[in-house]
Every structure is written in C-alpha cells, then in structure tokens.
C-alpha cells in the first residue's frame, strides 16, 4: 500500500507544560486541580493551597476522557506529584462531564470568570473567552463572580478552530498569522463571512487572484474581530477588559478588536507581581482550568466538598 504523503500540519500549535520550582507540594495542605477539556485544547492546572503549581496544555483528541487523562499526565510529567495526591479535581469545558478523575464539574463560564480574576486581578470587569468552538462574553465583579454572560455556540465561525483551518489553507503556522497579518501597508476589506466553509472558499478565491498572503490574513483577522465585537457590544464592555483562550494569543485579532471597540485589552501579565518576577509562564488558555482548581480549593475550605485524596 502506498504510504500517506508527509504533509506539514500548519494548525498544530506546540503543547506546553511546566512545574513551579518554588513550591514543594508535600508541604501544601490542599492540592486541587482543574481540567478544562475544550473542543480543540485540553488544559490541566494543579494548585497547591491556591498557588499556581503546574500545568499541561495539550490538544484534545477524539475522545474527552483520554484527552483529560493525557492533559493531566502531561501536567504531572515534570513533578513527583501523583494523581492520588490530589485532594480535589474539577472538570470544566465542553467535555466536563467526561473527565474521569474529576469529582465535580462546573461550567466553563464560571471557571473562566474566576480564572481571569485570579490571573489578571480583581479589576477585571469583562472577560471574552475565545475558545476553539465557541465564544463567550462575560461581565464579572471583583471576586470573579459572573454578573452577566452571553455565549455564541451556534457554530464555529470565527473561533479558534476556524483559525486553524485557515492556517492549514494558506500554509502558514497558526502562531504566525497574528504578527504577519499586521504587516500590511493598508487594511484590506474583511472577509465577508466568518463561516469557516464560506470563508475558506473566499480565501481560495483571493489566493487565485494573487492577493498577498499577509493581506488575506489581515482580512480574516478583521472578520473575526468584527464578529467578536458584535457579541461584546450587546453585552457591554467595561475596563479592565481581558481575552482568554487561544485567540488571545493572536495579536492580529486582538489589535483589530481593540481598534474597533476603542478599548485596550489588559496586558497579559500576572496580577501577582511575584509570579511575573519569578518568570512563571502566563498562558491565556489556562484561565478555565485555573478557575476550576481555585473553585476546588474554595469548596474544600468551605466544607462543601470532601477531599478525595488517596495517598
């Protein structure tokens, strides 16, 4: 049988994991974790007494339970902490009911709100979660409690998955689309539809006409920014405004959204200054899992949940 041709997959973003060298988990009282199984990516975050201890960020496979296990194993890879040592695990995201190690599941809206509050600080009022397959606009208070939310999960138009499909189509790695889309002398008219299928045929048309790649990227990014803006305008944006999820890493979309809204997004740095000083990685995709892990800690402390620690 003929071998399948080796093609480069431009949508494949690199998986990452990290463990905090400054924390000895054995000295911690409550070890909680959150697993956010999204449609495109899966994150596991482990916290020791509500301090950031470890994370793993992987691509979601074809089934949620295995993706959750993979994400958790990846987070534990560089640590001697074992799954049995974890007090409480909360599942969140699209596949939250299918997280085998979780004792409870919480919606990703609550978790992203709580996570953004922890990562960016209590001044955050609007959180836009740009996920792989849907987007959610959330207004929150200073404790990270949801005040108002609106989601758009009807289809994957203008979301992370759409960006991946686009990356593959124009043969540009997905993380290069943002910076390259900004290298245009003049802003081109946006792609008229964010529907992945329609946008794809429109892009093929533009490629055939010989339109430069960077202009097509700019056109796609602005179409995406415009779609997010419609949702945000309905909800009402207040500062401090943050974007979580994978699209927050695409400056082509973020910059254009800021321009259309007239509001800057908060800088992607830790609210806790010592985290930045020690060089802890800041990843916008972690907000959901981080929120879940913090909820675990709170629930245990309040006595609303019981530790499931086995060792």
């Amino acid at each position, binding site marked *: 049988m003929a071998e399948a041709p080796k093609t480069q997959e431009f949508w494949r973003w690199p998986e990452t994991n990290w463990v905090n060298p400054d924390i000895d988990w054995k000295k911690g009282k409550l070890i909680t974790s959150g697993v956010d199984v999204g449609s495109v990516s899966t994150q596991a975050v482990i916290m020791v007494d509500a301090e950031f201890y470890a994370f793993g960020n992987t691509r979601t496979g074809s089934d949620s339970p295995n993706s959750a296990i993979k994400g958790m194993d990846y987070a534990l890879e560089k640590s001697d902490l074992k799954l049995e040592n974890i007090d409480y695990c909360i599942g969140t995201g699209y596949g939250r009911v299918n997280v085998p190690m979780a004792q409870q599941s919480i919606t990703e809206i*609550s978790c992203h709100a709580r996570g953004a509050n922890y990562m960016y600080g209590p001044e955050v009022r609007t959180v836009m979660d740009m996920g792989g397959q849907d987007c959610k606009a959330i207004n929150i208070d200073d404790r990270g409690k949801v*005040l108002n939310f609106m989601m*758009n999960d009807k289809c994957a138009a203008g979301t992370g998955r759409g960006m991946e499909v686009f990356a593959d189509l124009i043969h540009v790695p997905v993380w290069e689309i943002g910076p390259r889309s900004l290298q245009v002398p003049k802003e081109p008219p946006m792609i008229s539809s964010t529907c992945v299928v329609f946008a794809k045929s429109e892009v093929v048309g533009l490629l055939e006409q010989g339109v430069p790649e960077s202009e097509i990227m700019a056109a796609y990014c602005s179409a995406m920014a415009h779609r997010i803006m419609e949702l945000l305008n*309905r909800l009402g944006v207040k500062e401090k405004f943050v974007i979580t999820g994978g699209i927050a890493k695409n400056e082509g979309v973020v910059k254009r959204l800021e321009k259309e809204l007239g509001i800057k997004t908060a800088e992607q740095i830790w609210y806790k200054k010592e985290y930045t000083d020690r060089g802890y990685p800041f990843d916008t995709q972690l907000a959901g899992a981080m929120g879940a892990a913090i909820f675990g800690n709170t629930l245990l402390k309040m006595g609303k949940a019981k530790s499931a620690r086995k060792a």
Partner: protein
Amino acid sequence: MIANYGFQDGSGNWYVIFDTEKCNGCGKCVEVCPEKILAVGPDEFDIFREGPVAFVKHDERKKVRYSCAPCKPGFGEKPAPCAGACEFNVIAHSDGWMACFKDSHQ
C-alpha cells in the same frame, strides 16, 4: 446574574434572558411553557448560590429561536406565557423576535 440563553446569528439576537437575582425558583414559568424548554434546578453558573433557579434546558439553548417563536415573546398583545406567569419579572426576550412579529403583521 443576568443569564442569556440562546445565540446570535446573521438574522439577529435570540436570547431568553433571566435575571437570576430576582428568581426564587418557584417553577411557575416551567409549568406554563408550551414548548417545555424551561427547568428549575441548581444554578450551574453560580455554584455558591443557595436554592434553585429557573433556566433554559441545556439541549434547548441552540433552538430557542424556533421554540420561542410561537409565543411571540414580549412583542405581542400579551406577554409570553413564561414572562406573564412570573411575578418577579425574571424573564425577558431579546429583540430577535420583534422582527418576526412585525413581519407577520405587515
């Protein structure tokens, strides 16, 4: 909390809006909904809330445009059954259905 269940698409905003602070979870709206899309239970968006709250069932959230249309919510002569049954004014509908209502009378 203001909970917006539904979606936005090229044809408008299709959201059933609950002001959960005012809701006591009595369930009168659930009883009168002709399409049976509502339910009462724990608040999935606020895990610390004590007491039940009314919401749109999970499977129905992507279909509210069609399931709510027969009631002409909010823009007919009478309020939609769910909104009419609620004594605390918890439930409202977004403007998507307004256009439907106007169209049918022009």
